[in-house]
């Protein structure tokens, strides 16, 4: 919402400065976005008088002038033809910035003659396009500020423009008068009365109006208008044009400018039809569907069934309350005009405007709610202005429907302001505030004015009182703790787990990323997503069309971007939600990490090696351990298709997959333009069970002082045998005695097969025996060893390597 200071003063009698007004506006909730102080750029300039002008010795077109300024007599070289003795001019001194030529002046020497400043033209000061000579003022004294002269003689050129952001609850502030009312209530002046004198009609309107199809109940409660015949529709007067141009509107013609003026001055959108182009009466009715209308914006709209439209006897003429039709619009030739003032239902206007994607000043206001009670007074005021500016004579008013009853009242409880806001405002002041805003008070009941559709309860009264009193005065008051003493921990176990997983991955050397929750459909499809249910109806780009089914694609895209910048070795992770569907709650928390390239930069110690699946596995185990997963898990090979089928695994508890790890499938890498190797791990944080009993107490430490014995075994097994099978078999040989079994070597490949036979490999384990009662004898050790060999043989078909 834009307006100028002088426009505001049409409605507000005030001595407040611009700064006081803008501060109050923002404080009142009418946030000032911008003040264009159109005088600011002209502030440095003062009036001066040319005392003497003579020909420049070395230039035909230049004159050397002696000029009387507020700092005494100066010499200025000037090229304007009208530079002559005796005229009052506008002086720009060295050091001043001249906006029209974008130059900060210095003391210059022009063809050998010093010049201390310049005398400006209108164009040089951005006042107009006039540049035939320097400004000659008809009045003023040497040393006067030019802005003061303009304010007194040409106020429209320096009238500050104020742009305020109006929140959707305040349609009344979409008119200058509503803004003035708020300021008056704050005490920044008084609201000037609005004198509404009905204009007597002198004939019957040849155009009738009818609201059809039940729209009176919902859509158009009231439609009124009248014909004014014999008007002359030329350019509007300068004051009106200046108002409109100051807020960025283009003057069109007097009739159209009047409607725009009412829209902004009083939040009363109007429409004017050229009577010569209307056939018969105007009907407000629901569209059948399929009708077409060329609107004032030059576009043709096809109406859907049920949309509210104004038609004459033949065809649609206006998108009711949104935009008029081009064909029945007023032009310079218009002599008879039908002036429309209607009250449209906000919801109906919003729905139609949204469906047709039209953003007009009328829609903007009607969908927020204009003052229904002002429909007819607005029509009278506009009639008056049309007659004043265009001449002509008015018909009687024609109308259908009635002003809808919006009367209501809420109890004003003066104590609520203290209990809800915490500000102590005397009851008398509260009542005075509401009355200044147009509320009617009867006892303790307050009835809001017809222009405030947002007031819908007692809390709204409190808000109005506090807002006008100024929330700036609100002082903080300590809020007592919900319970005394040391605060209890507040994070849920899952929230603690999320944090632990994140910090563990960072501690393992991964850089945390936050990537977008939506990715492109093709990438989503690669990771089991891309279903219709996860598609966005209105994505902002083709890269962001589907909710991510997994965190890995986002990380791979991040890796590709970093590789494009020359960073080939990456360790990235993200903790966040992945989406399995499009319903609320179809999301699950993942911690996903990605290793790309080599384990380290090249160094003299040979640390660099390609990352592999065991890196991912170790990190997955570290995260699982950190978040308290059980130590014993099953390692399965059933993993998602974006992993390398032979180099990936899943860590599960029964059917519950807690984590996946492995090499990323080469096809996926190729599709996502990542140079491998790349390995990844995903922890499904919710799939890891929480301990059933939460206790800080540790189990007692169970250790033995007896000497432990370590024995190594190397087995020859088929190369498809998994190490875990072998380890579990060994472990099972004597659960009490065997404390630990660990693989410490694997010998596989061509050389191994050459030694041990085709399809064979060797796995070496170390077994730690921990006696509990007495030291082990050699015979006992031998017995356990034999059992281990037997168990392993049974489980794997392997035998000891000799």
């Amino acid at each position, binding site marked *: 919402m834009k307006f100028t200071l002088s426009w505001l003063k049409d409605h507000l009698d005030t001595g407040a400065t611009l700064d006081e007004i803008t501060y109050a506006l923002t404080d009142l909730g009418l946030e000032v976005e911008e003040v264009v102080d159109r005088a600011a750029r002209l502030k440095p300039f003062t009036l001066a008088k040319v005392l003497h002008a003579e020909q420049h010795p070395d230039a035909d077109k230049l004159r050397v002038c002696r000029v009387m300024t507020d700092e005494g007599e100066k010499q200025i070289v000037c090229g304007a033809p009208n530079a002559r003795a005796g005229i009052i001019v506008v002086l720009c001194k060295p050091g001043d910035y001249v906006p029209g030529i974008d130059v900060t002046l210095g003391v210059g020497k022009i063809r050998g003659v010093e010049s201390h400043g310049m005398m400006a033209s209108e164009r040089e000061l951005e006042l107009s396009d006039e540049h035939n000579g320097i400004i000659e003022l008809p009045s003023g004294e040497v040393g006067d500020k030019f802005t003061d002269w303009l304010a007194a003689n040409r106020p429209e050129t320096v009238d500050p423009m104020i742009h305020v952001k109006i929140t959707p*609850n305040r349609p009344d502030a979409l008119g200058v008068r509503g803004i003035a009312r708020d300021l008056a209530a704050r005490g920044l002046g008084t609201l000037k009365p609005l004198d509404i004198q009905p204009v007597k009609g002198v004939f019957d309107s040849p155009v009738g109006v009818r609201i059809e199809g039940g729209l009176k109940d919902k859509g158009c409660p009231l439609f009124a208008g009248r014909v004014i015949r014999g008007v002359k529709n030329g350019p509007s007067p300068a004051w009106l044009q200046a108002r409109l141009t100051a807020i960025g509107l283009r003057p069109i013609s007097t009739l159209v400018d009047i409607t725009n003026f009412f829209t902004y001055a009083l939040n009363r959108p109007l429409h004017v039809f050229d009577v010569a182009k209307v056939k018969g009466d105007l009907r407000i009715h629901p569209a059948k569907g399929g009708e077409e209308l060329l609107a004032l914006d030059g576009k043709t709209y096809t109406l859907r069934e049920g949309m509210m439209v104004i038609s004459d006897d033949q065809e649609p003429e206006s998108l009711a309350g949104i935009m008029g039709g081009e064909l029945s619009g007023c032009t310079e030739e218009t002599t008879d005009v039908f002036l429309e003032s209607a009250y449209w239902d906000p919801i109906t206007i919003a729905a139609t405007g949204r469906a047709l994607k039209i953003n007009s000043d009328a829609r903007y206001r009607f969908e927020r709610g204009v003052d229904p009670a002002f429909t007819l007074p607005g029509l009278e005021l506009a009639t008056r202005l049309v007659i004043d500016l265009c001449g002509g004579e008015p018909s009687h008013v024609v109308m259908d429907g009635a002003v809808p009853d919006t009367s209501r009242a809420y109890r004003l409880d003066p104590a609520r302001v203290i209990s809800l806001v915490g500000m102590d405002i005397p009851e008398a002041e509260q009542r005075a505030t509401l009355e200044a805003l147009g509320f009617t008070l009867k006892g303790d009941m307050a009835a809001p004015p017809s222009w405030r559709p947002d007031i819908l*309860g007692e*809390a709204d009264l409190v808000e109005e009182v506090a807002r006008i009193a100024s929330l700036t005065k609100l002082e903080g008051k300590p809020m007592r703790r919900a319970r005394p003493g040391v605060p209890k921990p507040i994070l849920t176990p899952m929230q603690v787990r999320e944090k632990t997983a994140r910090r563990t991955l960072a501690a393992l050397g991964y850089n945390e990323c936050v990537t977008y929750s939506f990715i492109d459909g093709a990438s989503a499809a690669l990771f089991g997503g891309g279903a219709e249910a996860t598609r966005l109806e209105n994505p902002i780009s083709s890269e962001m069309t589907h909710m991510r089914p997994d965190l890995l694609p986002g990380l791979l895209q991040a890796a590709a971007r970093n590789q494009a910048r020359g960073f080939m070795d990456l360790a990235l992770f993200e903790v966040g939600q992945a989406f399995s569907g499009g319903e609320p709650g179809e999301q699950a928390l993942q911690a996903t990490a990605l290793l790309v390239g080599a384990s380290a930069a090249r160094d003299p110690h040979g640390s660099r090696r390609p990352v592999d699946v065991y890196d991912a596995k170790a990190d997955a185990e570290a995260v699982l351990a950190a978040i308290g997963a059980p130590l014993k898990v099953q390692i399965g090979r059933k993993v998602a298709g974006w992993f390398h089928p032979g180099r990936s695994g899943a860590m599960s508890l029964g059917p519950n997959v807690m984590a996946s790890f492995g090499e990323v499938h080469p096809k996926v890498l190729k599709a996502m333009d990542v140079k491998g190797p790349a390995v990844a791990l995903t922890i499904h944080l919710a799939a890891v069970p929480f301990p059933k009993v939460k206790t800080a107490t540790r189990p007692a430490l169970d250790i033995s002082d007896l000497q432990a014995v370590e024995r190594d075994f190397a087995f020859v097994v088929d190369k498809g045998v998994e190490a875990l099978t072998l380890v579990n078999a060994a472990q099972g040989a004597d659960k009490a005695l065997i404390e630990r079994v660990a693989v410490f070597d694997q010998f596989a490949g061509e050389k191994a097969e050459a030694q041990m036979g085709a399809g064979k490999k060797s796995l070496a384990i170390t077994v730690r025996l921990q006696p509990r009662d007495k030291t082990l004898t050699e015979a006992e050790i031998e017995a356990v060893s034999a059992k281990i060999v037997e168990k392993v043989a049974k489980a794997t078909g392997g035998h000891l390597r000799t």
Partner: protein
Amino acid sequence: MDDLSGKYLSAISLAADEAALEELRVAALGKKGEISLKMRELGQMAPEERQAAGAALNRLKDEIDAALRAKKAALGDAALDERLKAEWLDVTLPGRPRRQGTIHPVSQVTEEVTAIFADMGFAVAEGPQIESDWYNFDALNIPPEHPARQEHDTFFMARAEGDNRPPHVLRTHTSPVQIRAMTDQGAPIRVIAPGRVYRMDMDQTHTPMFHQVEGLAIDRDISMANLKWVLEEFCRAYFEVDQVELRFRASHFPFTEPSAEVDIRCSWEGGQLKIGEGDKWMEILGSGMVHPKVLAAAGVDPTEWQGFAFGMGIDRIAMLKYGIPDLRAFFESDLRWLRHYGFSALDMPTVAGGLSR
């Protein structure tokens, strides 16, 4: 006897290695060594003579033994010195590399905010990012055709044909978590709800996804003055300054009444933000007293309970505190950015230890 002593001591001092020393030890102190033989001769001496000679011999033996040991140690040290000299390494070579991980500023700041509000008794509530329009709008007093709804630049989920429910949305704010938390827990309640939110907006200063934290406190007597105090305490703790000054400005949010935008006093002198001083005001969050309709929508009786809610941008306060210039870079995962603006895994914000290092 002195000859003997002189002979061996000088020989020991000249011995070149441990083998030579051993030879000398055997020659002097061995079973058949010179001194051992002399010891044997003692038996044939007269008692007085034996006493004097014995003592002298013992002294000689100890002297040589000590010399042998000292020389052995000296030889050992020399050999070790020699070895260590040979084992010289260039310690200006780099150490074995270790990856340095980082925590994203959004996570770090979320934890900072959580730590502060936890101290004031606020729990952390969560909610889905794909929301029904009821939770995102209707329950928050934003009816379907209300212009406020259009101002949200909402992302809508696709609807299958024949499914005539209003489309779900990507939550445009964290406020729907207010409804969920109150529905679950009732009143009194104190929660914050940090998380991702989405708006269809992408330019210099906007990204289609960003992070907000919602705050909600409902009790029988919580007022807007309490809200101001809580926010003052938060800002003082978060920005780690002794003094902050907040200014409440009337505004409008459909879900609060009265509503206020909150500005903080600051200075931008020299391009550096300083909170709590200067003469500029910067908008940092929106807040207000929870609208009675919102309480009712969440099943909380508005005649019995009241309280405040606020919402602020996590990314934004992270930018302000840590001097991060560009919002878009938060989500680009540029390694250089992650390393520069990220935090160490062990930088855990706590009220006791401070929020930042």
